[in-house]
């Protein structure tokens, strides 16, 4: 969460922060994680260092086992690697991940080919969007990385993304894909990342494939499993979220980027990737559910309001106990198979569809009213008129109010921005010519 400013003039900020902070402090006591609330909001404080000082003895033992397996990887079966990746601590260090991630998704050495140059790809139709997102991905690089090295990595990132969408032209780039790509790139390097990213993007069970369709409809549908999963575990929480009408948007970046976009600690991101790389495609949605369940006390302390809730949930604290969350998510998955949930998801989607239909209906009525009797109201006040009509049927007061409001608004505007009005005049000279 954000820096707490004791001088803040914004009372509700203090309240919300205050509440969050309190909860976060409680949480961090449970968790033995050193955490600094002030560290979260600024990109430069992205944490890359792994803390070896107090390494869990289990982790040390696991480390040894992994090293032993890596000495003779051909003798090790996939289940073994998966078990390392899923069990507590995951694959522990990037030096292991670099070798094990490709094996988890079945990428072989001969698929790792040299990338083309950026120049060859820069005419691609998505080049500008990719470039724009890559340029803004500074936060994902280790702090203090030398400038040249960062720029080189960013070029590699652009190439990596374009290579995949050139290889599979029906796959559409989405903002957030670059967050997945950079995680792979930082861990595995540019040669191995390409086949890896291809595996994740293309194929019937490819976890990123639904995100890359012509529309986001398939993604929305899959994300709709989150609330039913939450409901199975905590009815009250689900009711509260429903009541706030918070929807699923807060979790969209989590799902689209496997949390890469939303977590500040690099070590958390790669830990989650260890798991996701060998889990069911929908498993990340169960993790979003487990994460919300984990934060239930904060949710209940938050005002039951869409905006407040969206805000609270979308910002992730730094000290989330991901090992526990993963265990919960697995349990949720085992107990509530996606096929079990289809009915609930369908019901949810029907309700949403109905709400949308009502919205459209209301809009149509408003338009009809405006078209039928709007001669008095000016353009700017049209909607206000429509609303007033709906809510105060046939009240002469409403139309009067609209006109008054329109006049007042113009006056206020002119009062507030005299400079703009004069500036407009000045520019208007040649502009009036254009109009004629």
């Amino acid at each position, binding site marked *: 969460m954000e820096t707490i*400013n004791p001088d803040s003039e914004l009372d509700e900020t203090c309240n919300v922060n205050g509440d969050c902070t309190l909860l976060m402090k409680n949480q961090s006591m449970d968790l033995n994680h050193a955490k600094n609330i002030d560290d979260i909001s600024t990109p430069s404080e992205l944490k890359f260092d792994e803390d070896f000082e107090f390494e869990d003895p289990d982790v040390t033992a696991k480390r040894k086992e992994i090293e032993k397996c890596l000495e003779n990887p051909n003798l090790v079966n996939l289940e073994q690697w998966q078990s390392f990746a899923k069990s507590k601590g995951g694959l522990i260090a990037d030096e292991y991940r670099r070798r094990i991630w490709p094996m988890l998704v079945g990428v072989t050495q001969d698929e790792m080919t040299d990338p083309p140059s950026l120049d060859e790809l820069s005419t691609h139709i998505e080049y500008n969007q990719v470039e724009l997102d890559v340029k803004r991905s500074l936060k994902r690089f280790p702090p203090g990385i030398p400038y040249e090295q960062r720029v080189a990595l960013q070029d590699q990132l652009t190439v990596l993304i374009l290579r995949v969408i050139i290889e599979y032209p029906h796959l559409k780039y989405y903002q957030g894909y670059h967050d997945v790509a950079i995680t792979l790139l930082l861990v595995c390097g540019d040669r191995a990342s390409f086949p890896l990213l291809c595996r994740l993007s293309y194929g019937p069970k490819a976890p990123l494939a639904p995100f890359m369709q012509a529309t986001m409809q398939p993604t929305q549908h899959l994300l709709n499993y989150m609330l039913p999963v939450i409901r199975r575990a905590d009815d009250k929480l689900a009711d509260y979220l429903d009541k706030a009408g918070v929807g699923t948007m807060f979790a969209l970046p989590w799902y689209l980027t496997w949390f890469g976009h939303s977590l500040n600690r690099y070590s958390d991101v790669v830990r989650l990737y260890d798991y996701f790389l060998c889990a069911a495609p929908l498993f990340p949605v169960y993790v979003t559910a487990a994460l919300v369940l984990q934060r239930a006390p904060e949710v209940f302390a938050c005002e039951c309001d869409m905006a407040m809730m969206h805000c609270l949930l979308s910002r992730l604290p730094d000290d989330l106990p991901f090992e526990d969350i993963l265990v919960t998510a697995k349990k949720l998955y085992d107990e509530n198979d996606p096929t079990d949930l289809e009915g609930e998801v369908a019901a949810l989607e029907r309700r949403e569809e109905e709400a949308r239909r009502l919205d459209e209906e209301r809009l149509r009525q408003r338009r009809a009213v405006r078209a039928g009797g709007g001669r008095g109201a000016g353009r700017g006040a049209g909607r206000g*008129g*429509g609303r007033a009509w709906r809510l105060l049927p046939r009240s002469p007061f409403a139309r009067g109010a609209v006109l008054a409001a329109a006049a007042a608004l113009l006056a206020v505007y002119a009062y507030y*921005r005299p400079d703009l009005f004069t500036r407009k005049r000045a520019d208007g000279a040649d502009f009036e010519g254009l109009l004629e």
Partner: protein
Amino acid sequence: MTESTNEHIGGLKQKKVFKIIVLGDSGVGKTCLTYRFCEGQFLDKSEATIGVDFRERTVRICNEDIKLQLWDTAGQERFRKSMVQHYYRNVHAVVIVYDVTKPETFHSIASWMQEVESHGLSGSPRVLVGNKCDCGTPESRLATAYAQRLADKHGMPLFETSALLDSEYDNVESIFMTLAHKLYSKQPLRVISVEGEPGYGVVTLPRQRRPPKSSGTDKCLCS
């Protein structure tokens, strides 16, 4: 109005909330502009917005505290249709942003306007913002007159500004304050609609310590 007049019947304080949605192509600077308004600074490491982000700031109008909720949307086309839909609900005002150095972002305004229209918002206060006027030479930037013509056609004020320049802070401020004033002056209707629409976020605020100021260092709630 003083604190006490904000008292609600139930003893809870309420603040009026105006929801403003910020639209425009990817990269035009929507996130930087909302950040500038809410935090008073340039966000020098902005990231692609995935879905919708939310910021807010309380401003003071006619001695009354008004909460402005800014919904900063993703510019990429694919997020628009099914995803951002939900957030148009109960929106009060619209900011459409383009990049003065990229004519194609200006040409997209037509489709953004269409979208605004399709959500029944064409009667709501709207402003057009040309951002990044610190960039390039005057000749390389889209002519103000050209933009003004479009703004007039849609009956919306035009602002040219920069989220980057500290000197433009007042100008950024006035974009949102213009909307806030417009909405405030529509208030009789606004209040009616608040009561008439379930789920409208009138936020209760216990424990107010001191009256907030209208501008300056108001902290954003969530960044």
